[in-house]
């Protein structure tokens, strides 16, 4: 079995198994902790609490007017590279073929030239994010190994993807194998670090928003 065969075969499925088991464990392990019953009389009924949770899920996607002057640029940067990532992962035709094969679906993609432009822009935004992380005193203080390692592994996936598409530095098969291996590595790391926020973000907004709405409090 050659390197590409390993990366696409046992390498990928092994990493995918770790990814699935790890993600499930990260979520299930919360259930093993105590869930407190709130005896305080709610101000809002269940329907309003649920509506508050749904609303918070949407409204936390952009800064409140009161904060936008202080946080707008940082949030725009954060959301921009996420959008770039989604576009490249989900709308690049070879990715659609691979992911669609896994789930038995097909969907339209973007032209390769446009994906290339988005990829390069996303890499630029990703570098800007790192620059901000190391230069902003608050973010630098909060950052730990997880932040930098997660950045590195995601950057590796993007950089090897661009290299493979542009045929830079080696044979296409080798570049593709390295790219797929980097994806395998990302899947292996995913459940152990902050990449889990992909699974947490909407439940977190909804849960906290719902609980605050239960009190009639601002959310």
């Amino acid at each position, binding site marked *: 079995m050659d390197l590409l065969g390993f990366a696409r075969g046992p390498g990928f499925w092994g990493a995918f198994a770790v990814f699935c088991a790890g993600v499930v464990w990260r979520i299930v392990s919360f259930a093993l902790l*105590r869930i407190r019953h709130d005896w305080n009389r709610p101000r809002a009924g269940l329907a309003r609490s649920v509506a508050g949770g749904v609303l918070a899920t949407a409204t936390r996607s952009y800064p409140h007017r009161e904060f936008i002057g202080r946080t707008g640029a940082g949030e725009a940067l954060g959301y921009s590279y996420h959008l770039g990532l989604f576009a490249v992962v989900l709308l690049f035709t070879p990715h659609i073929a691979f992911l669609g094969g896994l789930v038995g679906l097909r969907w339209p993609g973007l032209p390769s030239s446009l994906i290339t432009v988005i990829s390069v822009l996303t890499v630029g935004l990703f570098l800007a994010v790192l620059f901000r992380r190391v230069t902003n005193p608050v973010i630098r203080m909060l950052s730990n190994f997880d932040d930098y390692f997660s950045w590195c592994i995601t950057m590796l996936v993007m950089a090897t993807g661009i290299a493979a598409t542009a045929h830079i530095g080696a044979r296409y098969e080798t570049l593709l194998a390295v790219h797929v291996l980097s994806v395998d590595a990302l899947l292996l790391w995913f459940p152990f670090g902050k990449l889990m926020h992909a699974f*947490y973000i909407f439940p977190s907004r909804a849960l906290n928003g719902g609980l605050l709405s239960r009190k*009639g409090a*601002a959310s």
Partner: protein
Amino acid sequence: MSTALALIPDAAPAPLPVAPDPTPAARVAAAMRGFAAEIGALSAFRMESCIHCGICAESCHYYIATEDPRYTPIWKIEPFKQAYKRESSSFAPVMRALGLKRAVTATQLQEWQHLLFDSCNLCGRCSLICPMGIDIASLIEQARHAMFDAGLAPSELYEKAAHQARTGQPESSSEPYRDQLLAIGRKFGVAIPLDVAKVDVMLCVARTDIERYPAAVAALARVMGHLGVSCTFRSDALVAENYGYLAGGKDLQRQISRRLIDEAIACGAGTLLVPECGHAYSALRWEAADLYGKPLPFVVRHVTEYLADALRGGTLHLRNAGEETGSVTFHDPCELVRKGGVRSAPRAILKALGVTMNELLNHGDFAFCCGGGGGVIDMPRAAPLRYRAMEIKLREIDDTGARTLLTSCSDCRRTFDDARVHFDWDKSPGSLLELVAANLVTVAARP
């Protein structure tokens, strides 16, 4: 770090699983294990959800005023995230085995005392900014519990909490509050209902009002008399404040709440009315039942929402107070409005009073704290930093150009009054309740 932040040897009366006579290090280790064991699914989920974006710093007046990154709200719980990850997270055994998360030390927690108590008002503004939706303020409150168990509650708060749990008053007074309450009634010519056997509404009083703003106490009695509601204060449970809540001592908080709960039950009250005090409302409305272990057999209302209900129900009529007050700006107490959910009531009352409102730049849900919340006003050592943070608020108030500053929390009033002296500031905060009491329309006078 100043010596004022040294360990308080006997600060936590609750028995800890280390005995006898634990060293500070052993006490901290036990408190952290206790914290991790006690952490619920919700708090664990909140801690796991943090993506280290640092955006919460931009909501906190301590950070905005100083640009010191240590004041980033989520950083204030860093040792507790560390303890959680080491002791009870999904991969805790791996964390411990590989030494990926070190045990929290006494020195580390001593440093964090400043961050959790001196530079946090529990105002909850950070909980509105987090893109992950994390309720950071509730995590900080939980971290205060662990600090208390580790013997690291600030002495000013601990001593008041312990005294209040024992005696019903946070501090000794020259005269018992019961006698002071009756004296206020005589001075202001208002009947003070006291120890009535059976009533519909039980009243309590802000200790800050008794000591500094007796007119607010009289105003409460006057308004309730005007409404003709069957009500009473109870000698054995007069004080609304809960220093256990501020100090992070859950057992003390429970004892203090229990005193009010038991008296409300004893007099058959259907409503426990909280006076103009923000944290007292949070402690009773949103935490007391949990500490009681079952639903309270009465409802808890803040006087502001009670008055708004009376306005809506047509039992309260007010004169136009616009001429008396001139333009008004209102400071929203964090515990009442943003965290407590009493969001529309103050402005409904102000509208009924017919005053011209000049709103603050950040008002309502997004208002900055006065700077005194979370017990910070009770800690003299925190004053220099508090003054820096509250300058933001004072500037906003000045910028409104309003003649009158009103609020509905006695500790906020006290904080602004303190600023008036410190900054030689020209505003004197007034009470919304007092304004209502001064503008009641009697039945005969109604059009």
